[in-house]
């Protein structure tokens, strides 16, 4: 397939006597000719919310239609695609015959015409939308399978339990980027879907911005060369993976996604990879401490393609030493991403406390977040925080809650709290 994944490990392998936990940042970078690799059978399903609320104001549905058309225009010739309209049920808007159709000038035009005829009416049951998409992807197992899901509201017409059941069933079958338009949707709900389906979640507060956003989401999806890449972790006997978290470009906890794939070996899904992308993962392994002076392979990290081929490999080591000058050294990559995870947590805790009316806790948490964003140079998040609190001193995290905060500002901060600032490698 021509995709090479270079694996780099950043860690302090020196541990004090008796220490059992090894932390490392694993950077995976796709390289080589992959940037130009065009998968034969990429598949794309665009899911547009057409519930009644999309008609209020009418400009929201109009913007969603324009965005869908922009996404359709971005599809490369030969990509198998469909457009789905979602309400309390789901139906295929195009192609009429069901299934997927190969993109070409004629099918793209027909799809856009069908989209223009959409009307807003009915409820919201996202699980059913995803189930329909999953059925459409059937038979396209080879290439990247991707969906865009757009909604403006809450998942009112099915229970959280029903959504969970669907997510469990479709996870690993395709990836899905979620977009919320306006401010009436639930950040936690879309995040759950995006995390389960290894995609992103973002807010498009102003419907006018939707077309550009869809175009870029579809373009990124078109850039994927290989689907179903797994991170394979070997750990020694008596050892275990404490956590595996994607930490860049965004936070995504993969710890619970382990599938055993051999003795002392487990696979974690990472979705599809494009030719020119790089991601960072935080890995923490618990090992049986060995003697001072001993050297141990704490984990062998492999990137494994869909057919089991190893695309790249790295090593996480542990060396026990009495030399505290070595063992107390803090690895800057690990420290940076530990800070970014703490930043995201502080924002979420702060916003929750704010909603609950706990001013003291909200001020403390959001102040902590301001300080962490400042210290790590995460200016994007710092700006979003400034929409919710008045910052007196970013260095100490001295802030005051704003009396009036626009819903869009708060939701944007919440949604993007998991977007990390990438570490500058030393």
């Amino acid at each position, binding site marked *: 397939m021509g995709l090479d994944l270079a694996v780099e490990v950043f860690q302090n392998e020196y541990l004090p006597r008796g220490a059992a936990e090894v932390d490392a940042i694993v950077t995976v970078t796709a390289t080589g000719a992959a940037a130009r690799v065009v998968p034969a059978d990429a598949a794309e399903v665009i899911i547009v919310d057409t519930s009644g609320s999309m008609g209020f104001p009418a400009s929201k549905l109009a913007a969603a239609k324009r965005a869908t058309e922009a996404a359709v225009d971005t599809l490369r010739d030969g990509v198998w695609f469909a457009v789905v309209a979602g309400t309390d049920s789901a139906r295929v808007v195009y192609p009429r015959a069901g299934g997927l159709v190969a993109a070409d000038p004629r099918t793209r035009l027909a799809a856009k015409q069908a989209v223009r005829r959409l009307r807003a009416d009915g409820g919201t049951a996202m699980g059913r939308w995803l189930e329909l998409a999953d059925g459409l992807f059937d038979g396209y197992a080879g290439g990247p399978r991707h969906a865009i899901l757009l909604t403006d509201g809450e998942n009112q017409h099915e229970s959280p339990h029903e959504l969970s059941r669907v997510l469990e069933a479709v996870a690993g079958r395709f990836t899905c980027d979620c977009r919320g338009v306006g401010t009436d949707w639930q950040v936690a709900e879309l995040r759950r879907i995006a995390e389960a389906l290894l995609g992103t979640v973002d807010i498009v507060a102003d419907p006018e911005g939707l077309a550009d956003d869809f175009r870029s989401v579809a373009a990124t999806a078109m850039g994927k060369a290989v689907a179903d890449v797994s991170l394979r972790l070997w750990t020694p006997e008596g*050892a275990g993976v404490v956590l595996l978290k994607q930490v860049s470009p965004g936070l995504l906890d993969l710890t619970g996604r382990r599938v055993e794939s051999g003795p002392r070996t487990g696979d974690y899904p990472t979705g599809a990879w494009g030719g020119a992308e790089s991601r960072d993962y935080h890995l923490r392994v618990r090992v049986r401490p*060995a*003697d001072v002076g001993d*050297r*141990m*392979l704490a984990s062998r990290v492999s990137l494994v393609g869909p057919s089991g081929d190893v695309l790249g490999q790295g090593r996480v080591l542990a060396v026990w030493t009495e030399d505290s000058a070595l063992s107390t050294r803090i690895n800057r990559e690990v420290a940076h991403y530990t800070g970014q995870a703490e930043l995201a947590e502080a924002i979420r805790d702060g916003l929750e406390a704010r909603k609950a009316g706990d001013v003291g806790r909200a001020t403390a948490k959001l102040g902590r977040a301001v300080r962490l964003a400042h210290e790590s140079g995460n200016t994007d998040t710092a700006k979003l925080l400034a929409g919710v609190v008045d910052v007196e001193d970013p260095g100490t995290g001295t802030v005051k809650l704003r009396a009036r905060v626009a819903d869009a500002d708060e939701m944007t901060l919440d949604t993007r709290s998991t977007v990390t600032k990438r570490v500058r490698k030393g």
Partner: protein
Amino acid sequence: MESCPECASPVASQDRFCEACGRNLRVQRTPVGGPGAQWPPMCACGGEEFDADGFCEQCGRARPSARDRVEFVLPGVAGVSDRGKRRQRNEDSMAFGRVRGRGVAAVVCDGVASSERAEQASQQAVDTAADVLLTGLQSGMDAEALTTDAVVAANEAVSRLARPEAAEVAPSCTFVSVVVTDDSATVGWVGDSRAYLVAEAGAARLTTDDTWAAQLVAEGVLTEEEALTDRRAHVLSRWLGADSGVEAPQTVTFKVQTPGLLVLCSDGLWNYVPEPEDLLEVLPRGVPPIEVARELVEVALKAGGHDNITVVVVQLRGGHGA
């Protein structure tokens, strides 16, 4: 009737070579290159599979090096070298041999940890020195002159390992040797590896350390006790290597009149038993040299094993250090 140590064929006591396999019967010596690349087949956990980088597929630990624990035994002389409990590598080396009818030669070198490829330095030094000493023993050369030749040759060999662009970390090591003939023994040394003599009457240290601290003691600036705890205690004033400038060892020759043991060791042992009386107290009696060496290494390991430990024990006049 004796037998060939190589192929076990019967040989006569006057034979110089084995009729069956051609082995030189006059000289018996430890393998050149040390334990070399003979990897232990198994990890400490019992695992037998290792990945391409030498990590155990079961417990993840790096494959143990053959150098981690080395034991060599020849008639009347034996040695044990151990990585200890703190260091990642064993940078000590030892080599010894015997020439039938002439005597025994033994060398211990301790690679300087702050230099690069220290284990290569010490191995190169003991191999080179053992060659010179055993060849000289066969031709009956003067033991002191022989010891100086051995040090000069070893120093040159170690110096050749240096990279011109990294002179400040040129591979380096200490040196202590003994040449034992029928009636005398000659000890030579550079650095802080030591030789002790243990006899019925008691024990004595035969070497004086080439360290800054020892020099200060000699000049009366420090007492022995102060020197042991001084941070300069182990800073060498002489060593072998490209940057050493060493031309000759210090030597001492003495008559061997009574049975006893000669103990060569690296500082991994003597740090725990510095005084001859300390050594005497822990030294087992009435056992063969290999048992003495094992026990002394064990003493150092039990006391913490902070450094590599190497002990070579030579029997004098059939003595057991009783």
